[in-house]
Each structure stands twice: as structure tokens, then as C-alpha cells.
């Protein structure tokens, strides 16, 4: 048995995660060829590295197939209902910061708040015969946020990438997406609603509450967590 640590398998998120662990004396590395998702851990015994897509890490934690995992708050909240019962937030890691926001075209000068959005979506439906479309991949979070805010007559359309472009392409009227600097939004002539912040997210180290742990695993886990506190 060993402790399984799930880490994003590519890009900046992977590099930053490796840096974060390196600062704490643990070297994570990818082994084999560039295309092979295998990894190695040095500096601590009994830990296996599992390279995964960041989007799959919440599910793997909830299924108990990995003990620890690095992924964004946004993905955990979106993918795991009652996430507090399935995973424990161990360490916010201070990178991958991004906000999940609602944004509309800049030229909608009459829309600044969720209340405006609600009024506009009613009028839009009357005019166009369909509900106002919001492009997003965060269906559950956005639906709950808008239900709570009492916004009606909207429709979520799935967008797994290039979400900001959907308005110009007229496949959606507005977007709900992750942004860190707002630059992509501005470049696409979109603005954030003043009360449209759904969630602040950052890369976080999570512990699965359901993964099975032998006594040895527990000792390894404890030794590992002590390193993070120091």
C-alpha cells in the first residue's frame, strides 16, 4: 500500500504544483517520455504520484482512488455535491487563482446587476422566443447561484472551451467562466456584472475523506502533512 497523490498532468498548473512541493523538500517529476503520464516522488517514502487531468481529480478523490489531490476550488465545488463530506481542504496553494464570474457584452449599458439581468432575460425571451443563453462549463454552480439570486428565463448552454467567443458567434448571449486578470473578457468586449462573482478559486491540496488508509499509510500521510505545516 501507499499514499496516492493526484496532480494535474500538464501545463502551468503541473509546473506550479511541482514547485510548491519542491519548496517543501519533495521532488515530483514526470518520468518516461513526454507523452507518458507516469511520475516519481523523491524526498518522502510511500507516496505514489498519479498524473491526471485537473478536471478528473475531484471525482478520483470522491471515489477514494487517490488520497491526496491538487485541483481548483471551482472544479471541486462544481463536480462534487456536498463536497465538504467527501473531501477536506488541506492547503490553499497560492496559485491558479481565478474567479468564476458572470459576464455580459460591454455594450449592454443597461445591465450592471443580477436584477438587471433578470429583467433583461424576461424581455429577451419575449423578443426572441427563446431563453437568454449563458455559455458555461460550470452548470451546477451557475444554476444554484442564479436560483439563489432569483434570476429566471435563462438557459445554460455547454461550452468546454473558447467560451468568451460564443457571444460574438451568437451561440450565447453571455458567459459564466473563470477569469484571473479579465484580459480575455475585455478582448472579447465583455464586462463582469457588479454582483456577478460566483466563486473565488485557487489551486488547493485536498484530502479524500473516503480513501482507504492502512496504519502505515496513516503514518506516511501524517509525515507528509507535517512537512506542509513547517
Amino acid at each position: 500500500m501507499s499514499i496516492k497523490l493526484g496532480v494535474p498532468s500538464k501545463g502551468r498548473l503541473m509546473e506550479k504544483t511541482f514547485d510548491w512541493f519542491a519548496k517543501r523538500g519533495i521532488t515530483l517529476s514526470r518520468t518516461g517520455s513526454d507523452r507518458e503520464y507516469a511520475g516519481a516522488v523523491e524526498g518522502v517514502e510511500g507516496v505514489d504520484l498519479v498524473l491526471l487531468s485537473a478536471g478528473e481529480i475531484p471525482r478520483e478523490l470522491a471515489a477514494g482512488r487517490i488520497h491526496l489531490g491538487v485541483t481548483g476550488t471551482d472544479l471541486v465545488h462544481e463536480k462534487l455535491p456536498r463536497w465538504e463530506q467527501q473531501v477536506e481542504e488541506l492547503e490553499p496553494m497560492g496559485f491558479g487563482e481565478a474567479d468564476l464570474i458572470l459576464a455580459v457584452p460591454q455594450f449592454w449599458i443597461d445591465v450592471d446587476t443580477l436584477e438587471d439581468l433578470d429583467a433583461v432575460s424576461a424581455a429577451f425571451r419575449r423578443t426572441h422566443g427563446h431563453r437568454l443563453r449563458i455559455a458555461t462549463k460550470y452548470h451546477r454552480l451557475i444554476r444554484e447561484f442564479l436560483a439563489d439570486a432569483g434570476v429566471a428565463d435563462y438557459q445554460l448552454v455547454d461550452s468546454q472551451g473558447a467560451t468568451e467567443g460564443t457571444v460574438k458567434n451568437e451561440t450565447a448571449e453571455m458567459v459564466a467562466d473563470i477569469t484571473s486578470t479579465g484580459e480575455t473578457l475585455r478582448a472579447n468586449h465583455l464586462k463582469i456584472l457588479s454582483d456577478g462573482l460566483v466563486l473565488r478559486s485557487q489551486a488547493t491540496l485536498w484530502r479524500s475523506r473516503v480513501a482507504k488508509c492502512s496504519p502505515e499509510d496513516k503514518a506516511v500521510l501524517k509525515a507528509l502533512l507535517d512537512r506542509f505545516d513547517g
Partner: protein
Amino acid sequence: MPNRSQIEARAALLRQRFEVAGGVVVDPPLLQNADTLLDLYGEDIRARAYVTSDALRGEQMLRPDYTLPVVEMHMKGGAEPARYTYAGEVFRRQEHDPDRANEFVQVGYEVFDRTDPADADAEVFALFHLQLRGLELRVATGDIGILMAAVEGLKTTEVRKAALRRHIWRPRRFRALLDRFAGRTPISESRKKLLSTSGPLTGSAPEIGKRRAAEIDTRIETLRGDAAAPPIAEHEMAALEALLAVRETIPYALEQMRDIAVDLPSILPALDRLEARASALRARGIDVDRLDFEAAYGRTSMEYYDGFVFGFYAERRPDLPPIATGGRYDALTRLLGQGDEIPAVGGVIRPDLILTLEGEART
């Protein structure tokens, strides 16, 4: 916990009693066209119903209740008047509470009859009352029609009334709108700036998306009109708040609401309907003097109830959902009737919950 065959046996018994009362057995399909549900309830239904799809028919939903397919079926050419009954499973997606069932049996009774709506209300309620006899339940009743009539009668603009009407079933948004229309909410800086400029407004940002500049101009005109309209009068606000707070037995509730009607005379016809319903209930042997009435009851349910509403609750088991619920949904028949409409009232019972309560009573 009752097992499946016990639940089915009880469901059959309940349905049989509805048949004796005149209900024709119907058995609508499990899968429903998702578009109809989405049109009615919006995205919120996705949190409540399971969605599936195929390449031919597109998105389908496992029926979250029977009312909708029964209304659809009736509006396509049912006899008139008509009484229907059914027993079968409904499916509810659960995203928060693992203790809530995602599949359970409902037994229902629906009446489509335009001759005497007050008596149809009483007929349905009395039948449910009879079915649940012997169980210690708290009964809640209300009437969404009174609140709707109050909104209609407000001395304010049609735009504001339409906004309030649209959010009758979302109490928090309703409250926020009401506060704004009464001038209780300060106007935001961005709104002030928007309205302080006169003439057509053109921004520097490019026009993108399907919502066009003309629509923005129209909305700004509407906002200007709204800013110029006087706030809803304090006495009307006070009356509306008093109305929403009414919680009494039916005779006292009527008395209180007749006082409130001095400031909101538009609710008088709805109060007369409540009085007629009370008489009809009495004639069917219901002890109206002890029946509770809450003016705000039924507002948070997702149903399209727009008149009489009722629910039966196990007071000693507040963790359980209501044992039975029902109400009047005339507007739903209008929405699904393509030009047709008919007064309709009905309700559903959960046999599994009845058995659970009976089991507890025995031990």
C-alpha cells in the same frame, strides 16, 4: 421502512378509492419531452429532474411528476368534465440530501371541470382528507389567487405588475422588486448615471451578440419610465405585507383579509371565492373552523398553482416531505392548451410515507 410490494399494494388501494370517486385511470409515459418542462420551469428543473437524450428525440426527462403529462393529455382532447387518477413512480434528482428518495410512488387525482370551481376544490381536498384519515397530520391551506389579485390591484405601472407577477413563486426576488418599486431601495450609482443622460445612448463598445442596440434602447426607455413613476403607496405596501403575514384558521383569516381589502379592494373577488370554497368544504363535512390558512403558503413550490393550495404534513416527522400536496392550476392548462383553457385542480399522495407513519404508530 416499507418494502416495494407493500408500497405498490397501498398505492393500488389509494387509486381504487380515487376511481370510486370518479377518476378514470391514466398511465402517462415515464419519459417526457424536456423542452416542455424547460419552457415551464426554466433551468431550475434540471436540478430536480433526470435528463437523458437520444439523437432522434433530443433531451427527455424522467417524469418529475404527473400533473404536466396529465394536463397535456387532457388538453389534446379529453372529455369534459374529466376526472383522472394514476399511481406510479416519479423521479427526482437529489443533489444535496442523500436521505431524500430519488424515485418514489405517487398516487394522484385531478379534476378538470368548469361548472363549480369552489366545489371541485372541496371535492379534491375532502377526498385527500378521507384518504389520510387516522394519521396525525397538520394540514396547511392557502390561496395563491389572493396574492395574485393583490398584485393586479396595486396602483402602479403595468411593467411593475408584470415583474411582480413573474416572481410570485420566488419570494425573495418578489420582495426585492417590491422594495424597489416602493422607493425603499436606494438607486445605484450606475443606474443614476445611466438615467441622467438624455437621448439615445451609444457606447464605444462594439455591438456583439443577438441582443441588439434597439433592445437596449427599449429597456432604457422602460427604466426612465419607471424612474418617473411614483413609488407604490405606503398604505398598499402595508396592506400587502399584512396580507402575506395572514396565518389563521379560515374564518379568522377571512375576517383579517376583509379588513386588509379596505386598502386592497382588488382581492375581494378572490376572498369571495375562498368563502365559497369554505362553504363547499363544510358541505362535504370538513371542519373549516379548525382548518389553517396561510396567505403565503405554496409560494416556494415549483408547481404552477394559482389558486387553492394544500399540504398534509407529519408534524412529528419534520424530516419527511409532505405526505400529500395539491392545488389549483388553471394557468397551466392555458399554457399547455394552445388557446384552450379549463379550470383544473388536483393533488398527489405518497403511499410510502403513509406506510412509514403507520409503522411508527404501531411500534
